[in-house]
């Protein structure tokens, strides 16, 4: 899992089956000092609560789809939690 900051939203009305009502957010991956690393990715919001500006953690690759219901969906990044505090 990785830390990230939600920077925006993506709206798509035509989507693959099973993704109705799932929201897609643009997430900038962060390192442990919360500095941006790498390119932003689009992640499905599996917690249904994340919004722009929030610090979140997300899973990448096929495991991401496991966080969603239904699970058989083509999703490679999913937000699985909202971060309250990071202690390093």
């Amino acid at each position, binding site marked *: 899992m990785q830390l990230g900051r939600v*920077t*925006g*939203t*993506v*709206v*798509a*009305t*035509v*989507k*693959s*089956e099973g*993704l109705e009502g799932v929201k*897609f957010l*643009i997430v900038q991956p962060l390192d442990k000092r919360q500095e941006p690393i790498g*390119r*932003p*990715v*689009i*992640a*499905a919001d599996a917690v249904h609560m994340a919004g*722009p500006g929030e610090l979140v953690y997300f899973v990448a*690759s*096929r495991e*991401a*789809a496991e966080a969603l219901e239904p699970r*058989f*969906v*083509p*999703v*490679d*990044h999913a937000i699985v939690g909202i971060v309250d505090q990071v202690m390093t």
Partner: protein
Amino acid sequence: MQLGRVTGTLVSSRKEPLMEGMKFLVVRQIDADGGDTASYVVAVDAVGAGIGEVVMYASGSSARQTQLTKDKPCDAVIMGIVDTWEVDGETVFVK
């Protein structure tokens, strides 16, 4: 997932038999600010996207998670046609 712009179609007559009947599109990756990047990807189209459209595609084993690409040798699938997106409260793209 990543954002991309469909730049063309790809036709292949000699291919893995499992891939028959699939539509392949050439997708150019774009940044969150809308600018083109240098990378291209060939993706299977699961939503009926057309040339010029901005799409979202999933890569890796997640790309096999559609009815169309299930158990097929596919590592990129277009799973959404983008209508709009915004970054930091600013609308970057409107279809």
